[in-house]
């Protein structure tokens, strides 16, 4: 069965480098197969641009299956585009209609400066992790795995939190550019597991301090982060982070 192809118009943010001024540029892509992924549609456009001696559009991506967290752009005003619970690379063109105009922008948040076109610098997340996103264990010097028994429900809950891919959509969607969902998810994963408890207080304080230092805003409970999170991480993560933070500061 032949599927009906689409003709799509694009308005894409083009910016030569970090210091340059950017602007939107219009493109048209014809005969788009609806089974194509959004990024494959961009690949095809880039192939055309190269052959026309134009500079292709830069966008970050790697796994193309929603797990590495490298891709991400704001599509028609929504981080990662029209389908909830998906990354940009997972979006298929069947979510668009023939004749649609698609607006494409990079993540916009002060702690994520644009490097080129749709590519941003998300290294602030790494620095938050370096501040405390770990258990301080030495290679080899650890107890046998069964020393830590974790009931099914707890393991599942921790896994829900650990599923964060660090894509930054939560920050891009938040009116305050807060990284609370990202930090909350990591803090929660460890808080839920016996292995993470000993350092819980130090961890949450260090990670929150680093988050503030990077210039991420405060959370004022808009919930936009949860709505765009490709892994559907619940804002309960933020509540837990606050609880952990409070407990840490009381001690």
């Amino acid at each position, binding site marked *: 069965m032949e599927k009906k192809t689409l003709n799509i118009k694009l308005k894409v943010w083009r910016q030569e480098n970090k210091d340059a001024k950017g602007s939107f540029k219009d493109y048209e892509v014809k005969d788009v197969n609806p089974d194509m992924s959004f990024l494959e549609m961009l690949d095809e456009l880039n192939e055309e641009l190269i052959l026309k001696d134009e500079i292709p559009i830069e966008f970050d991506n790697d*796994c193309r299956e929603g797990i*590495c967290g490298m891709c991400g752009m704001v599509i028609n005003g929504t981080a990662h585009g029209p389908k909830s619970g998906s990354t940009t690379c997972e979006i298929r063109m069947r979510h668009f209609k023939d004749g649609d105009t698609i607006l494409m922008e990079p993540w916009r948040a002060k702690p994520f400066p644009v490097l080129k076109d749709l590519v941003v610098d998300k290294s602030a997340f790494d620095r938050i992790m370096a501040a405390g996103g770990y258990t301080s264990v030495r290679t080899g010097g650890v107890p046998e795995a*069964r020393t830590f028994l*974790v009931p099914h429900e707890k393991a599942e809950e921790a896994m829900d939190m650990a599923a964060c891919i660090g894509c930054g959509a939560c920050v891009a969607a938040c009116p305050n550019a807060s990284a609370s969902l990202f930090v909350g998810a990591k803090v929660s994963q460890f808080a839920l597991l016996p292995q993470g408890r000993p350092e819980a207080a130090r961890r949450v304080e260090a990670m929150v301090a680093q988050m503030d230092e990077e210039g991420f805003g405060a959370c004022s409970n808009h919930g936009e982060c949860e709505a765009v999170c490709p892994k559907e991480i619940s804002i309960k993560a933020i509540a837990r982070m606050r609880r952990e933070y409070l407990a840490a500061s009381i001690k």
Partner: protein
Amino acid sequence: MKLDSKVPDGPLAEKWDKHKFDMKVVNPKNKRKFTIIVVGTGLAGGAAAATLGELGYKVKNFCIQDSPRRAHSIAAQGGINAAKNYQNDGDSIWRLFHDTIKGGDYRGREANTYRLAQVSNAIIDQAVAQGVPFAREYGGEFANRSFGGALVSRTFYARGQTGQQLLLGAYSALMRQVNTGRVEMFPRREMVELVIIDGKARGIITRNLITGELERHLGDAVVLGTGGYGMAYYLSTNAINSNATAIWRAHKRGAAFANPCYVQIHPTCIPRSGDYQSKLTLMSESLRNDGRVWVPKKKGDKRHPNDIPEEERDYYLERKYPTFGNMVPRDVASRNAKMVCDEGRGVGDTGLAVYLDFAQAIKDFGRKTIEERYGNLFDMYKEITDEDGYEQPMRIYPAVHYTMGGLWVDYNLMSTIPGLHVIGEANFSDHGANRLGASALMQGLSDGYFVLPATIGDYLGREKLEKVTTDHEAFAEAENAARERIEKLLSIKGNKTPKQFHKELGEILWNYVGMARNEKGLKTALEKIPKLREEFWQNVKVPGTADSLNKHLEFAGRIADYLELAELMATDALHRTESCGGHFREESQTEEGEALRKDDEFTYVAAWEFKELGKWELHKEPLIFENVTLTQRSYK
């Protein structure tokens, strides 16, 4: 070039412990005087960099992505093996070793594989201590599943995201060392040359992928954990930035390349749908635990799968391999899928697919259980194909997935260039001619956490290294070579994009160096590849400039390398006239169509030394089996 595997003497089970004792240990105070360059932040590179930092070395760690957490290991779904025997189903280090050697069709090195099985348990302990949320049973014990090629349940998993969770564990250990200042991270860097001084690996040249700058990095040893070369095929399950550049450029400077023709083609991938396709999506092999593979008995049966009655279906894996059934190793499953499609019994629009059916499992366990086990895979399938795997069988087809070949290393994981160590998928060492599921994560972490950090100390403790700086002429020469290559690529301004060449090369490899190979096909490939390479260097059109973020320039450099590597893959495949594991030579099969090894002729590792473009010298490392008996693999 002489290959010395440096396998320690003594009984198999004691080799590693004895070796650890015999190795030189660097005085803790001196460790900080050594700088180790680690390229790659996947399970192998990330674990190694974290552990080396923790031991007190100065580490410089590099990756292509914007963050070490995004290495391709993140995509691994199904699980990681270990010989814990928590299920009390008869598992042991010996059994894991034996399954791995047999699964590799007796083309792996015994001592390495045994060590891998030995270390496997410590990996699970490590990951758990890091807070990896492995799946648990209600009482808090570990849940395990079984994978192809094994009759025990020894696979640990974290939903369908095991690689992600293990990598995040390694990444958090790594970031902890970044915080202490012992590891310096260099993301968005591509290693483009290896620097050799006085015959030893002493540094690398990287390209800063944002500014385009070429940078010189000096060290006392270099570790490559840069992953496999499956992207040579263009379409594969690998991530877009996976590449062979680091190992290939090291190869051209003297590191022997072992068994390049051993490529794993994974049986459970979503079939290709169109020309625009940029990658193939894997669905974890764990699906074969509950899914049943079948095709219609009749050729060209175009009925909807749900309308094909039971007796007109051929569950060909269950029929041919009653013991292992749908759980045969990957190479066997893939080849059988190809066979039934070649017979004209393939399904879907293209006829290049077989069914993976969950109707029985849903009947037996209920939809909820199946959802719990594989929900994310069913969702992914639906999003990609627009079909519902709960309502009708999924369509699957094999795709290039993993490369068993890689740079040759000795027992210490050192290549034929002193000081150059190679870990993870980038080396050839532990899986023979076919890797079993859930064993790559195990190997990457074994190499990274436990083996390399021990063996590299021995190297540093023994070698006297010349005092040099990055002003050394070897750095200048390597940097120039890199610069010239980039300038050349940009100056050609031809008529075809890098991707067009990549696709063409991929087709040649898939057709002639794919699931089934023969002399005629391989010779055809060996004619076509150099021609395509020549055309590339005359007619490629690379956009943009060298001094900015330029993804297509990066791709072009990597494709130039595949165009050389592909020739070696075909050369190796042609020389090995036997079938073994993932390397199936049509000329060498049993009457039943199974891979037929020629042990008298080919029980060796083929290590190729680069001479000049298109010319290699073959060196053989004989494989000596003292503890297992070579048999015709049988999964019946």
